[in-house]
């Protein structure tokens, strides 16, 4: 793995983050980050799907007629997601129950199509695969941050464990902020992350 390949993984984590810089995948990041656990599950599934679909599309890229490329990409992504879901349903039923609502969200996630269009269609399979992993993780890191903050301050728990109750915060008058669980708060938090990121990295300012 040379330095170019490493960049494919590290860039999406920071200065080319799919959520905070490219502003893709916002819908699903609102929907699944009310708690930490679904956020992590979603992050992992998107990473798997982006990486594999990038790999497959990259392998097919020379044979795909440009005029029908979008629908070809869509078919590959959907087939992949359904396939994974079927296997999960048969072998790890609990995980598939958790994923049920995300499956549709993964297919329509702009990051998947965005990476196929922008990268996999014009690059070799190995870099395309790494690009998928990188972007999935870049998406995931934001999801995990949102899930962490929203679950901790919205419910006082983390991964279901009652942190604030154990710390005894409720006894001294602390109350959970229900507003943080609502979807708008996820948007505001994403805004705050973008703000912090751009203050630290002037290159990103338009």
């Amino acid at each position, binding site marked *: 793995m040379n330095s170019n390949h490493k960049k494919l993984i590290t860039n999406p984590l920071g200065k080319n983050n799919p959520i905070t810089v490219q502003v893709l995948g916002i819908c699903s990041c609102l929907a*699944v980050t*009310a708690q930490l656990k679904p956020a992590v599950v979603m992050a992992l599934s998107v990473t798997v799907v982006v990486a594999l679909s990038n790999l497959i599309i990259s392998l097919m890229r020379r044979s795909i007629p440009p005029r029908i490329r979008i629908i070809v990409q869509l078919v590959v992504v959907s087939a992949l997601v359904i396939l994974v879901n079927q296997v999960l349903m048969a072998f790890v039923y609990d995980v598939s129950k958790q994923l049920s609502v995300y499956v549709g969200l993964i297919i329509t996630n702009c990051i998947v199509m965005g990476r196929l269009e922008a990268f996999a269609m014009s690059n070799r399979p190995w870099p395309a695969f790494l690009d998928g992993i990188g972007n999935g993780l870049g998406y995931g890191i934001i999801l995990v941050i949102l899930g962490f903050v929203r679950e901790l301050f919205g419910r006082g728990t983390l991964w279901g464990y009652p942190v604030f109750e154990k710390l005894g915060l409720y006894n001294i008058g602390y109350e959970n902020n229900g507003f943080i669980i609502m979807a708008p708060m996820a948007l505001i938090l994403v805004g705050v992350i973008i703000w912090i990121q751009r203050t630290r990295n002037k290159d990103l300012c338009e």
Partner: protein
Amino acid sequence: MRQFSNKYMLLYALGLAAVVALLLTAVATGLKSRQQANVRNEQMQQLLATIGVKAERDGVESVYRQYFTDELDVATEGEAPLKLYLYEKDGSRGYVIPTVGNGLWGKVYANVALADDFNTIVGITFSHDSETPGLGAEITSEAFCSQFIGKKILDDAGRVVSVAVMKHADAANPHQVDAISGGTMTSNGVSAMLADELQRYQEYINAQRKEADNEQ
């Protein structure tokens, strides 16, 4: 860039569709029996959880047979028969009524365990197809379900009034429980489901209660 003829494009699309269709069909058919077994096992686990019995997925069947004595199909006029599960636990008998309704994004389900007076809720479990995690999906949480225990579905005259899921519920009122903040649409769906589905058992409940009265 390479030029592609229309014929190539058409064949490519057809070929891709055929390959994907075959692949998905093969996988779905091949895994069907495993998936159905999973669903059935989970249903039994849910029913057991409703009456407060925890069971591992492996071997759930034998535990199920231990507690659930019968499954009834109550005939109704012009409608699909009503399902009813009979259980016996620690010497007391009761009934579990399965219900299904609409949440915000998809179907929601509940199993309502009643004591043998057909009135007091002794346990309830919820499941759903696609409610929002962290919000509507919280209907499956222990905190939400435990509110229902001890609530009544009948009023003093023996009419089914169900239990309403609502804002600012009065904990002392036997027909009210608190809704989920951020999950109002799902909560409303659950409320409507319980009211509609339990209503359908009215005649059967009347008949059973009358019979019980006569015996006394």
